[in-house]
């Protein structure tokens, strides 16, 4: 199934603005993130910490609805879903 990934901020520079991934049916958000992480070390580093856990500060949206931390692992994606990824900025 095809899933569209919209990247924001720094993540856009690493994976590009829009990426379409072909994932096996029944894939979840962790599977999609693993597929993105496998593209480059930079990509992996933005999404996962040194222990391999999804970085807490990154904001994920599926079809423009924010995914709460507690359901990151349980979200199952469907054909045509759009996942947005925003690694927030902090400077001023």
């Amino acid at each position, binding site marked *: 199934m095809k899933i569209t990934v919209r990247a*924001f*901020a720094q993540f856009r520079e690493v994976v590009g603005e829009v990426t379409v991934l072909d994932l096996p049916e029944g894939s979840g958000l962790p599977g999609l993130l693993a597929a993105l992480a496998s593209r480059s070390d930079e990509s992996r580093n933005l999404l996962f910490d040194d222990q391999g856990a999804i970085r807490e500060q990154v904001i994920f949206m599926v079809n423009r609805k*924010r995914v709460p931390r507690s359901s990151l692992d349980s979200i199952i994606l469907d054909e045509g879903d759009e996942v947005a990824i925003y690694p*927030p900025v*902090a*400077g*001023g």
Partner: protein
Amino acid sequence: MLTDREIQRYSRQIAFIGEEGQERLKAAHVVLAGAGGLGCPAALYLAVAGLGRLTIIDSDRVEMTNLNRQILHWEQDIGQNKTASARDKLEAMNSDLIIKDVCELITGQNAVALTGQATLIIDALDNFPARYALNLAALAHGIPCIHGAVSGYDGHLTTVIPGETACLQCIFPDPPGGSEFPIIGTTAGIIGLMQAHEAIKFLTGKGTLLKNRLLIWDGRDSSVTFLDLERDPECRICRNWTQDAGSVGGVE
């Protein structure tokens, strides 16, 4: 009450916000946390809009590397306290504005004491530990806080209304990494100005606030995206929020 001179000075905006809106600006006290890339443009436009009272908090001195974006600080100010430098320019722009400058680092120890008199708080800080302390103080007092942040070509902002919207901790339960961020001056200018705009909307009551919405600015293609937010019922900071001061985690 507005003076005749004020009615004349602000006539172009009184035509839009009314004398009542202008009076609200005059009666307001904004506490601005940070006199850097975000704080400078925010303060500049609030000063000329006719804000009555402004407290500026920043512990830094002006450095040469600030000059690409911190537009209230000029070459002549290098080595000066940012709060004093900002006050000088703002007073020259609007002598009616009452300014208090506080040259202190915002921490969990002083944030509550520094913000209690505010009508509105603007978070124009450059690091998350201080932002979290400010968030806590805003919640403790029940004072709305306009949060903005930038890096490179990227920026975001939202308005936190205690008890009504997601607080900073709900939105960003963990602080984004890094300490010194690359910043293009215009990015800080755009977000700082949007914070001032949000403040004017809040203070005059005219317009719709960015409540439970995170505006994400991408300067690469000048695009704006909105992210809908909601309070985290498990948020360790605001889950038990009530209007009484001292009712949020960690604040006495």
